[in-house]
């Protein structure tokens, strides 16, 4: 297992290097004159020249790339032009918010998607199955940012059940920062009022992000369970007289969710993409909101850092998914 983990992590390195090349190309080669773009439209030729020298844009591209690699290796992501703080610090603040949000969204997607998919498969071709399949198709077609606005309209503005935006009511102060995740920190501090408030703020954004996930997971679980139900061992266990509910919940499901778990890794990319617009609508102070601000302000260092961070998280999630396979399926674990 450990050997697998090390080997799998090493495999990520080439694609990380590729990611660095990609971001470098994006930032330095795509804009015709990065210094002018950075200086803004009102800058004089002299100001542009100063920026060019300051950021090293006047040196040859290969040299710039080596300097850039050195900075990244030291974890030096530079200063954000917009917030005037080190980018690493900004990211450190925004990342836990996004992790909390996306993790809850994935959890919600699995908790709703797997039972839905199983129900659809067990009673396949029934009206219930058709209804669930319609839901899954609809879930993949709905635009996250629009769903976010519709949920806000209904639950926050009209019914007033849930808070409209933010991570915590403005009258409350955040729990002491231990993990950066409000749900965890508030529990560690023993503040159940904060926990409840954070949870109510999390509900709509997490559900919005979870919707395409619910659809995908339900779909793959349905297909997996249907396939497993055809296996000989299921016929045998049915004949021996296992209760159908127990059979499905314990034996069939474990043999069926591997494909759905793989989807979680792929889903994560969709989640982060969706988070860009959704976080903005709910004023969720995460990576997505930060990315939009950075991009709209052409904050080069911040854009770069966001792209890299997301790429790294993406790689890590995929390693975790591989490990999860091993936990679900001992045959996979043996090959690790």
């Amino acid at each position, binding site marked *: 297992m450990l050997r697998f983990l090390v080997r799998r992590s090493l495999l990520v390195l080439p694609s990380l290097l590729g990611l660095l*090349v990609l971001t470098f190309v994006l930032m330095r080669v795509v804009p015709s004159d990065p210094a002018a773009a950075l200086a803004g439209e009102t800058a004089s030729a002299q100001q542009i020249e100063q920026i060019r020298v300051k950021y090293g844009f006047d040196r040859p591209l290969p040299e710039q790339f080596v300097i850039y690699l050195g900075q990244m290796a030291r974890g030096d992501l530079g200063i954000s032009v917009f917030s005037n703080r080190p980018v690493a610090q900004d990211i450190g603040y925004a990342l836990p918010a996004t992790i909390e949000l996306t993790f809850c969204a994935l959890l919600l997607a699995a908790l709703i998607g797997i039972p839905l998919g199983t129900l659809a498969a067990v009673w396949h071709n029934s009206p219930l199955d058709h209804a669930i399949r319609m839901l899954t198709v609809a879930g993949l*077609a709905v*635009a996250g940012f629009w769903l976010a*606005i519709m949920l*806000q309209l209904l639950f926050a503005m009209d019914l007033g059940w849930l808070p409209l935006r933010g991570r915590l009511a403005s009258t409350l102060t955040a729990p002491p920062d231990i993990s950066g995740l409000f749900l965890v920190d508030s529990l560690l501090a023993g503040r159940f009022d904060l926990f409840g408030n954070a949870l109510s703020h999390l509900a709509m954004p997490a559900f919005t992000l979870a919707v395409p996930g619910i659809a995908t997971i339900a779909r793959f679980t349905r297909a997996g369970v249907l396939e497993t139900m055809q296996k000989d061992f299921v016929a045998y266990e049915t004949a021996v007289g296992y209760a159908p509910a127990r059979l499905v919940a314990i034996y069939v499901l474990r043999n069926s969710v591997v494909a759905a778990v793989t989807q979680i890794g792929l889903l994560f990319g969709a989640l982060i993409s969706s988070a860009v*617009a959704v976080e903005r609508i709910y004023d969720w102070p995460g990576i997505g909101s930060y990315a939009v601000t950075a991009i709209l302000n052409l904050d080069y260092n911040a*854009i770069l850092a966001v*792209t890299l961070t997301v790429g790294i998280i993406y790689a890590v999630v995929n390693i975790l998914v591989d490990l999860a396979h091993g936990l679900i399926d001992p045959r996979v674990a043996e090959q690790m």
Partner: protein
Amino acid sequence: MLALRKFLRDTPATIGLGIVLACILVAALGPCLAPYPDDAFESHILQRLKPPSAEFPFGTDNLGRDVFSRVILGTRYALGVALMVVSIAMALGVPLGLIAGYRGGWLSEAIMRVTDIVLAVPQLILAVVLAQLLKPSLESAMLALAATYWPFFCRTVYAETRRVRSALFVDALEGIGASPWRIMFLHILPNAASPIIVRATIGMGFTILTAAVLGFLGMGATPPLPDWGLAIAESRQYLPESWWFATFPGLAIFLAVLGFNLLGDGLRDFVDPRLRRSR
């Protein structure tokens, strides 16, 4: 005809086909169908933010324009953008996938590694960054979306090419001295046609969705274009009173994407039941 009948037996796919055809029709005839075709660019401040009525079925927006007309007129932009993006992505990805799959060696490695890297960042993030760096406009948004979608075509074609390359007819063609280009484009490509068509159909839905996000974030279409995503962004300040302004453009996105997704899924099951996976 038999194939068509078999396809039509798949109810969801038939619904998808119907929605897609309806979208194409609306896109083509937009100005004739819209009750106020001039509302794409004109404004009537006196009638701003009117709720849905017989006169304005979807209500009016902040500049007094008929939301129903703008949703109809927006169809052309949405489909046009998606078609452009998918075509450019296809024009890039298909030849690269063919070359990588047929040639092998370092060139193949290089192409597929670049594909991996582009796929290592979520598509929207890359598209948003690229669109903004290229100066925000509809054209940049299309280029950015195409630049991030081609790897999907490349992978699909690569896999098919690898499968077909060892077939006897390719050996035979090489034996009688057919040029590699001829083999790739005239003989291998037709074998990969069905997965490409499926990928393109699903890509249409996906691109409509992503382009709407770009429009919403202000990195795609610019006012006063009747873009769906842009309209939803503009509507946000007028909530909750003017709910119709945000609701109907979103429903249009939903319907169009739903149509292409259903059709794509149906086509996939139809041409190749083995391919029942990926998005």
